């Protein structure tokens, strides 16, 4: 099985006529995903790779006769909150927000509204979700052929604050013969819809997932939250972490952000050094190299078997 996404998941693309959206629509369709419609205000009646375009989410629902399970939102930052609220109010329960540079207040507002409606947001500033060999939602992995090359089905769940590194890590797991259950690009912003700890219960319930790999960075308290979750919940799924951006701990780099907006260090707890200490204290090994990940995962899996 998988988390969040199955073979039958239907979704729409909001902002479907944009250049990036046209590409990701093609990629998702080629990979086997079920895109039931697209929305770009004022473009009703067109189609994008055979997907009908509408002015509103309501119109997609009227035309298809059902509320889609999900939406991929890729509209300019000033319009993203409105697009997400439109999908939420229409009853869409899984929203992948690709857009970057959205003000935090807008993100916080849409996440709070999603919480009230029991819906889930992935991102913003993310590439989406892929269940190898089944479906993908978003630009993650690129064209279907490239996605197939990097992502083979297997027992490891992947969560990453970097979209590109989701693929690098998954490719490494695939090459080592392990493979991926579901990979989630959770987004690089300071406030995101779903953190590691918030997705853990889903992986925990997923029979296919036997271990988790996370890609982490300086900035924010998301890793501390995961460490607490692991301590509080007797999780059956072992976790291996990779921490990038260790160089940002250097004195001269203080106050600067690199890579993603969320890497801005606002307190001592946010530094790579502190995060590594916290994760390791919670029994999560933090490897120094991407190519060490498969062995660390195999070790966790064999340790668990030895106990069982």
């Amino acid at each position, binding site marked *: 099985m998988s988390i969040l996404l199955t073979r039958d998941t239907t979704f729409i693309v909001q902002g479907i006529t944009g250049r990036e959206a046209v*590409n990701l629509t093609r990629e998702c369709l080629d990979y086997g995903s079920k895109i039931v419609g697209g929305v770009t205000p004022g473009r009703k009646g067109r189609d994008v790779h055979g997907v009908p375009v509408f002015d509103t989410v309501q119109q997609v629902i009227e035309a298809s006769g059902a509320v889609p399970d999900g939406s991929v939102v890729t509209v300019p*930052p*000033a319009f993203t909150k409105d697009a997400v609220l439109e999908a939420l109010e229409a009853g869409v329960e899984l929203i992948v927000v690709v857009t970057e*540079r*959205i*003000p*935090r*207040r807008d*993100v*916080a*507002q849409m*996440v*709070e*509204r999603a919480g*009230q409606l029991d819906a889930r947001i992935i991102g913003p500033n993310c590439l989406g979700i892929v269940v190898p060999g089944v479906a993908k939602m978003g*630009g993650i992995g*690129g*064209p279907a052929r*490239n996605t197939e090359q*990097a992502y083979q089905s297997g027992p490891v769940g992947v969560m*990453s*604050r*970097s*979209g*590109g*590194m989701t*693929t*690098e890590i998954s*490719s*490494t797991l695939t*090459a080592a013969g392990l493979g991926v259950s579901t990979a989630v690009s959770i987004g*690089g912003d*300071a*406030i995101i819809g779903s*953190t590691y700890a918030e997705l853990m219960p889903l992986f925990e319930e997923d029979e296919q997932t036997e271990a988790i790999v996370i*890609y982490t*960075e300086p900035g924010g*308290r*998301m890793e501390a*939250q995961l460490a607490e979750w692991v301590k509080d919940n007797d999780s059956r799924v072992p976790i291996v972490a990779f921490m*990038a*951006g*260790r*160089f*940002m701990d*250097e004195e*001269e*780099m*203080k*106050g*600067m952000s*690199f*890579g*993603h907006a969320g*890497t801005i260090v*606002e307190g001592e707890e946010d530094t790579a050094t502190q995060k590594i200490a916290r994760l390791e204290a919670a029994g999560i090994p933090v490897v*120094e*190299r*991407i*190519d060490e990940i498969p062995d660390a995962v195999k070790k966790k899996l064999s340790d668990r078997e030895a106990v069982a």
Partner: protein
Amino acid sequence: MRFYEYESRKIVEQAGIPVTEYGFVTTAEEAKATAAEIGGPVVIKSQVLSGGRMKAGGVQFADTPEEAEAHARNILQLEIGGHMPKGVLVDPKAEVEQEYYAGVVWDGTRKQPMMLFSDMGGIDIEEVAEEHPDHVGRGHFSNLLPFSDFLAKQVIASVGVTGSALNRLTPILANLARLFSDRDMTLAEINPLAQLENGRFVALDAHMEMENEARPRQKALLDELGIPGEDLREPHEPSAFEANVKAIDSADHRGVIQGKDTGFHGDLGLVIGAGGGSLTLTDAVRSQGGKPANYAEIGGNPSVAKACGLAKEVLKKDGVEKIAVMMSIVSNTRVDIVARGVIKACLELDKDPSETIAIFRIPGAWEEEGFKILDRYGIEYCDRSVSMHEAARRAVEKVQGGPA
């Protein structure tokens, strides 16, 4: 982006929070005049974006306008944390009865703004939180519901403040919370928030930071404060390298390139990407004993000219003989275009690409086409079967081995 204190006070004042009758000036003569206008003892405060101005001598007390002028003259020439002051603030010296702290920050875990309040103002809130946790009150508020004053009252009352002080402080913290949301702040802090001997409650210092992403919709406020769009308030002045890379990036809308070299002093030039990949690769070079000359990010699908421009800027840096061209697996970036760009950079600078490019590791779309071009110039390259750290090791080895 961070605001100067005089701007922060203006923002606070607009939100209905009382401040003293301060004056912002840029010359010693004006400081004298303002001090005379205020009458009585004043404080001269450096208007600088870096912290630690008290320790650095950027805050001085003066009893007379002449003394104010002398202090202002010194402070205006005093560099603090690498920044020259923009001016000085002349503030009446306050007779303080009690100092409080009021602040609002984002709580990324709760995904809501969080108010902080303490009856121990005037010092760092982190310090108070650590040493006197019972003197720090906290409270979150909704992103969706209109802010209601009782939320602020609860936070203030939680540290034991009662009586008229509670009733005077509540609207101040409530207005600060509203301002935080209305103005897209990431930090809104009044420290100290003072109760004066005459019974007034005033903000004696304020520190505001606004989210960069929200600047377009806060343009009216920024215009009013006289902050132009190009004033980015970076933590440091951009270096020539940083400014040049930025100019190359803005000249062409295809793809994104970024470059930073503040704090980097090494000899291996990095032409790397994307976001997470750049962080990983910079660490990888360092962990292999290499010394990066810069940080870079290639994102999206840049043109040949853009990739070439970045590589040239890196190669022009002092002491850089070799560059490593590396990325995590890419899906949008065309490998062959980046290959063309970096080779062009070498040739235009009369450098041999096979000597100059220590390693090329960009797995992804069009990699076969890229390999063909790289082969033609005898450049060492690898695919995804060579890890990011192994690629970094090969590059570092070549730099440390000296010219081959």
